[in-house]
């Protein structure tokens, strides 16, 4: 009998021992500290902060954030602060100091194309490495995924999404569409209520990130004060300067395996400056689209010219590839 119960039950037996000793059921720190005794450290013990930091591998994500994302200084600062807090909290818990789990629900506001989704993906990974969330996946949804079409449809739909996001980050893009002020019987309200309830009661299980344009987000919070107060971190993503956009463009080109002809660099900068003043400018997304169109022109230029081509021709974008853009003709 003893052999039989040991057979299937060993993993779960261990698990229960760990988390019951830890005091908090299914806490991720119990998982992270699995190798060590869970008895609190002596009050006069010392922990090496640097090695602890290395162990969490959070720096890799932070450095990746620094290297891959141009600009966004306030965002990076806030994320570093959060990482520091989680790391310190983890060490406090080693000494047996009980502090509440920090609330990490966030709101990302900013113009289109300022990197809100990209940062959210990195954030999920970072929180996972620091042991705040258990899985580190990102579930990205919009109003369509949360709000139903008829009475009684919304609650199961929202709950389904919330369950899928548990253990990770729920990213709600353009969250203000959830609330439609003009229609008070809109089902979005129901969705918001469920969201609020889960954000409050299951803080251990998921992190909710709302994203959207600044002004519309502000009016969304004005009509849903409960939502605003449950979100601890309101992070504003600033628009990129032309220099930053240029750096982003170069980064994108490099990743796609293209280079700019020396003559193209000023043209590209000029293009970005002109494009900024056009309507519907979407920061990094517009840069991406510009590069996509330049690639099209580059390809058809090569085909039209005919003849043999080598590696330099295939990878170099010429000024003409950008100058053909509508942006340049509009101004004159």
């Amino acid at each position, binding site marked *: 009998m003893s052999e039989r119960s040991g057979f299937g039950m060993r993993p779960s037996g261990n698990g229960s021992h760990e988390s019951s000793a830890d005091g908090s059921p299914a806490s991720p720190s119990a998982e992270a500290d699995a190798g060590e005794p869970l008895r609190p450290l002596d009050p006069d013990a010392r922990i090496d902060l640097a090695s602890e930091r290395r162990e969490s591998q959070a720096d890799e994500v932070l450095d990746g954030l620094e290297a891959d994302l141009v600009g966004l200084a306030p965002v990076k600062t806030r994320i570093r602060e959060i990482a520091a807090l989680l790391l310190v909290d983890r060490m406090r818990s080693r000494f047996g100091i009980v502090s509440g789990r920090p609330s990490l629900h966030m709101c990302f506001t900013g113009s289109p194309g300022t990197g809100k989704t990209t940062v959210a993906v990195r954030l999920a990974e970072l929180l996972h490495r620091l042991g705040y969330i258990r899985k580190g996946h990102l579930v990205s949804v919009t109003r369509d995924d949360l709000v139903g079409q008829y009475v009684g449809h919304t609650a199961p739909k929202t709950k389904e999404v919330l369950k899928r996001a*548990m253990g990770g980050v729920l990213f709600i893009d353009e969250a203000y569409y959830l609330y439609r002020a003009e229609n008070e019987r809109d089902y979005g309200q129901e969705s918001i209520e469920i969201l609020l309830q889960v954000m409050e009661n299951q803080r251990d299980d998921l992190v909710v990130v709302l994203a959207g344009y600044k002004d519309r987000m502000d009016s969304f919070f004005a009509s849903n004060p409960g939502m605003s107060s449950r979100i601890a971190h309101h992070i504003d993503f600033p628009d990129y300067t032309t220099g930053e956009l240029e750096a982003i463009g170069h980064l994108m080109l490099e990743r796609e395996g293209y280079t700019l002809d020396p003559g193209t660099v000023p043209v590209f900068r000029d293009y970005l400056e002109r494009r900024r003043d056009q309507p519907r400018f979407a920061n990094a997304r517009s840069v991406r689209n510009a590069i996509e169109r330049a690639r099209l022109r580059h390809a058809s230029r090569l085909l039209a010219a005919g003849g043999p081509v080598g590696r330099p021709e295939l990878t170099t974008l010429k000024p003409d590839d950008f100058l053909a853009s509508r942006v340049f003709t509009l101004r004159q």
Partner: protein
Amino acid sequence: MRITQGTFSYLPDLTDDEISAQIAYALEHGWPCSVEFTDDPHPRNDYWEMWGLPMFDMADPAAVLYEINECRRAYPNLYIRLNAYDASYGRQTTALSFIVQRPAEEPGFRLDREETSDRRVRVRMHPYALDRPQGERYAGNGHAETP
């Protein structure tokens, strides 16, 4: 009499942490979980009521445990079990199934003998709980709530 059905049934009832660990094991293997409940403890009762649909695309045990707790709240005094399906065989195959809640008091079974032709005796098992109509079977032991 304590009903023993499904995996782990000879062990003491699993705690929520242990249930979480089992769910995590199932999810790791890509087995979707579902929650079912019943008030008919007969071992041949294959048709338990479903608590919602099976849960696909879940990443974390907390989501499944949440549904278990919702079901417990709605039916605090019925049998509730958790199933995990292994779809990799191309047919519905239960890979793991265990009871996560049982009534506070389980009256157990009696054997009914029935004489049939040629002095043959047939024996059948009769759960005492079935003497009462559905919905009242476990009502008499402290918990007023019934399905």
